[in-house]
């Protein structure tokens, strides 16, 4: 059975409980006091010490509050024009997204790893074995989502384990457990796929036609990655959430590069041989 996450960004309230729960359960160190000055988001990005990250996306292009703002209507998700000439799009004003390792079906980091430290465990999650990793850092630029980094002072690379230890004990990952709105759902990838499709259909029926599932082979999984076990329901273009539209499997081109190099080596050998001719 393959397990994974479904992160429904439409119900995320940006409470960052998942970030805290993840840090706490996995005993991850703090990242220091950094104030970006850009937004309320001061943890900025995923890293070797931040395995869940809630993005705070301010979307003023959709933020249209005019006339008398009806806060009750706002809370109740009303999208049609309001009395008094007020217009609003409640979901568009703020977007939150709890980002996490995508647990790719064909994982670039796993293919890059020269020590075999990165494996697929019995839950079909991409897992870095901390006792094997020697900190070569090659998985870091290989990841198309910027999930892994090498942790300074430790030297090894880390990322979301999908709470491997909790799963072994039959518990759901800490972030999913902590999520108060069920924005983060954990389960069998096949089940999550159905839930995601139903939810997107529900949103589209409500008039949010921009909703879609990101992380399926069709969307966000081209170029050899074959989709992700961490899926997301998004309401805007992937780049808005700092996600690539069409990530690709970097190793896909390695064979071609080796062939091109062999051709070059042959040509250079001939050139050197010719240089010896009188």
């Amino acid at each position: 059975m393959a397990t994974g996450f479904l992160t429904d960004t439409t119900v995320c309230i940006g409470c960052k409980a998942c970030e805290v729960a993840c840090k706490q359960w996995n005993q991850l160190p703090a990242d220091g006091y950094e104030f970006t000055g850009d937004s309320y988001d001061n943890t900025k990005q995923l890293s070797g010490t931040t395995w869940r990250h809630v993005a705070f996306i301010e979307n003023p292009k959709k933020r249209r509050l005019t006339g008398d703002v009806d806060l009750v209507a706002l809370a109740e998700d009303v999208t049609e024009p309001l009395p008094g000439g007020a217009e609003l799009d409640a979901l568009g004003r703020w977007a939150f997204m709890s980002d996490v390792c995508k647990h790719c079906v064909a994982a670039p980091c796993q293919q890059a790893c020269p020590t075999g430290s990165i494996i697929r465990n019995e839950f079909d999650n991409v897992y870095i074995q901390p006792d094997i990793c020697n900190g070569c850092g090659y998985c870091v630029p290989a990841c198309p989502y910027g999930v892994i980094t090498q942790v300074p002072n430790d030297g090894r690379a880390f990322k979301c384990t999908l709470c491997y230890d909790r799963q072994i004990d039959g518990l759901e990952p800490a972030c999913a457990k902590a999520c108060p709105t069920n924005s983060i759902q954990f389960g069998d990838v096949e089940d999550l796929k159905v839930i995601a499709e139903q939810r997107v259909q529900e949103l589209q029926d409500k008039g949010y036609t921009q909703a879609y599932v990101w992380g399926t082979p069709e969307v966000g999984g081209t170029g050899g990655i074959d989709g992700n076990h961490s899926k997301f329901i998004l309401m805007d273009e992937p780049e808005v959430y700092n996600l690539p539209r069409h990530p690709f499997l970097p190793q896909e081109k390695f064979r071609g590069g080796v062939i091109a190099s062999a051709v070059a080596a042959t040509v250079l050998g001939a050139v050197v041989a010719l240089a010896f001719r009188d």
Partner: protein
Amino acid sequence: MSETTRQDSVQQGNGKVQTSHHPETDPNRKDKHYYGIPPIKHAHWTWQVPVYFWIGGIGAGVQMFSTVAQILGHGDKDLQRVSRYTVLVTMVLSPILLIWDLGRPERFLNMMRVIKLRSPMSTQSWSLVAFGNLAGLIAARQAAEDGLLGTDNVLVRLTKLIPDRLLSLLALPVGLNVGSNTGNLISATSVPIWARNWVFMGPVFLTSGLSTALSWLSLYLRLTRSGRPETLHALHRAEKATILIEAGLIAASLFRMSRWAKPLFSKTVAPLFVGGTLIGGIAAPFALLRGEEDRRKSILASVLVLIGGLAFRFAMIRAGRISADDPEAYFTFTSGENAPQPEDKV
């Protein structure tokens, strides 16, 4: 959203309800970014990696030149000696530099846990092990012949049993893989400037390695006034040809990288790439090598090529860092047919 509608909405925003900072109104920020935070992470690699790329390239190139000379029956003992010792030194230094760069150097042997043909880092590690051991055996035979191991003891007699000429032939493909795989290793990543150039990255690193190797051999033989005239002549001709091929491959790479080549011309990398590589490492030495062979000119050209090769590797690694840190580069690269697709042909 188009530029005009965005402008409109920004203008509409004026005087309307404003609750917080508006990322869209920041002129330094372009559309569709998350506060300009890089969507991918750059490699942590420090100076050891580009220096290894340079040294490993020299080892590969020297192996190529000396083995071709051997195959053609060109028996220059001075060339053979300097080649074998050079390859040994490069293959001793390379693993030291690479292990130094590891986050957990004491675990370097974990590279030998598995063989993964899909991982350029794994094939590189194994190639280094194979090339290093072969280079060690060949250099041992050379040392025995040079009398460095003493005279007529058991060790010398055993060492002289090493089939050096056969091992040189075996070391050639392994060495070539060490030289070209450095390029393939960086192109098999998500970094736009590297990944985009997957066709030429291996060839350009191999060619640059050969040109630095030829320059090293030529420099050594001319400084020590050793080597046969035919060897020096062949080196001279091969240097010129290799520099031309290298220039062509760099031009092809720039064409292939197209807009993602921008970091190579950025303020911090341009001095290395344009000044160090294109002018100092290719144009100037080629001008010096043209016409009649001249010892002084050749020595100067060799030094320039060696420095240019090192500058090229630093430029490539630094440009990759800038490219990875640029959200615009990555998002344009992954938003369409720009990214390498599985159905791409070589």
